[in-house]
């Protein structure tokens, strides 16, 4: 008559499974509908958490599709931590293999953008580098200089116009996306994360800087479409550089 927590969770996640015997109503009979309270609470609370985490994905596929997709996701990927604000980390990978979503090929990358925005929202606070500090570095030392990049900063590169699609679904009067590759960087100057359109070369340069490579090394990683001045301009304006060394 003992109900192990393994029995309990297995039945809870499978609506077709029978209720573990040993769970009773006050008359001592099997507690079937009562057990469904837990089934429902878990599915609804996890599905709600995914809706909160992925509003643009939801807008792109519609409420009904999203709910059904979330129901599959939450059973395949139940949370591994009580920090619900980070739930959904496997969503891009899940969506890329989710057959019913194949007709929206940019969906996994939009999910990546939404994950990056949440990560940035909760990232550690940092103090931006003084705007003149980089200008004060001697020209012959500049390429050897390393920049410490704030933990909120993340780049995403996509074969799809992710920046334009994200904006078209979040900003009134945003321009219509043109089907072309795009890259973006997520920044957080104050408390509200933002996305900025960059190109793939700038994204690889920023990634190299964030990994501790020097400006010279980070330039070498990128191809000749890199506009170093513009890239550093975005980073400095957004308080993304916290230190030079």
């Amino acid at each position, binding site marked *: *008559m*003992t*109900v*192990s*927590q*393994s029995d*309990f*969770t297995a039945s*809870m996640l499978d609506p077709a499974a029978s209720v573990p015997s*040993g*769970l*009773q*109503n*006050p*008359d*001592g*009979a099997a*507690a*079937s*509908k*009562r*057990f469904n*309270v*837990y089934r429902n*609470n*878990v599915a609804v*609370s*996890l599905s709600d*958490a995914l809706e909160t985490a992925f509003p643009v994905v939801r807008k792109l596929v519609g409420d009904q599709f999203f709910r059904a997709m979330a129901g599959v996701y939450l059973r395949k990927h*139940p*949370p*591994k*931590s*009580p*920090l*619900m*604000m980070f739930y959904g980390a496997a969503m891009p990978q899940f969506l890329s293999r989710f057959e019913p979503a194949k007709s929206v090929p940019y969906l996994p990358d939009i999910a990546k953008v939404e994950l990056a925005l949440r990560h*940035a*929202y*909760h*990232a*550690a*606070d940092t103090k931006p580098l003084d705007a003149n500090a980089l200008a004060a570095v001697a020209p012959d030392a500049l390429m050897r200089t390393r920049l410490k990049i704030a*933990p909120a900063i993340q780049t995403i590169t996509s074969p799809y116009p992710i920046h334009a699609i994200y904006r078209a679904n979040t900003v009134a009067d945003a321009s219509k996306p043109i089907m072309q590759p795009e890259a973006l960087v997520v920044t*957080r100057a104050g*408390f*509200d994360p933002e996305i900025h359109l960059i190109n793939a070369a700038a994204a690889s340069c920023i990634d190299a800087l964030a990994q501790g490579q020097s400006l010279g090394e980070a330039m070498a990683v990128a191809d000749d479409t890199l506009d170093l001045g513009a890239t550093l301009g975005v980073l400095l304006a957004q308080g993304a550089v916290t230190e030079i060394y």
Partner: protein
Amino acid sequence: MLDVSNHTSLPPRPGVGYKPQHYNDIMRDPGPVAWLEIHAENYMGDGGRPISQLRHLAERFPVSVHGVGLSIGGEGTLDPDHLARLKHLVGWLNPASFSEHLAWSTHDSHFYNDLLPLPYNAATLARVAAHINQVQDTLGRRMLLENPSSYLAFAESSMSETDFLRELVQRTGCGLLLDVNNVFVSATNLKTSPQAYIDDFPLDAVGEIHLGGHDEDEDETGATLLIDSHGKPVVDPVWALLDYTLAKSGPKPLLIEWDTDVPEWPILCAETERAAMALAPA
């Protein structure tokens, strides 16, 4: 890190479950609200607006940290990473109180985001007591344990919930968080008397009282099935049960919980005004 809080205990006055959308309202005019409760897990990020707001709130109000993810009733060991995050939060915030639930939510390294029930017997008592001791040793402070909302019973239970809680208090020195709505929900669902539960509850150990709203449904036999949803006003029979409790316990820190379909501040504030009247009847 900087200790932002000088508030070392919760006052026996109304408090409210803090929601970020009410930040400006609360800072401008908290009405009868004398303290705030936060869910620990929402403040375990590295920084950003949540942590900043919490620092500002803690300068002005006593804060109660209420955990929903520790899984104290779990069969497995407590998650050391989660315990470490909790220790960090309690360390820098130095809250007036820390509380958790008599429930489990994690099993086999998966977190189910709900408060799941456990049977009450010698084996579960020993396990829960060991977990409470571990939490109190890690945090270096006494914790409060909250009574759950029950929807069903375990055939393997051999103790009443009140005996189970009283025994935990004796074994671990923990305090209790008495959720009066949960008492009403459980008593209705299990066809027992809510007043008898209060009569048998170790009220001396109560450090805080919770009040919240519930939903009403029925099971397949047509019996009333109340569901603890925290999405509505507190119903009159629960206010009456609160009066019954306070008449026996004396004034206690009294929290209004409203976690889903969260209303505008004036509606929540009106609930805390009613709580203030219950604490100081004319």
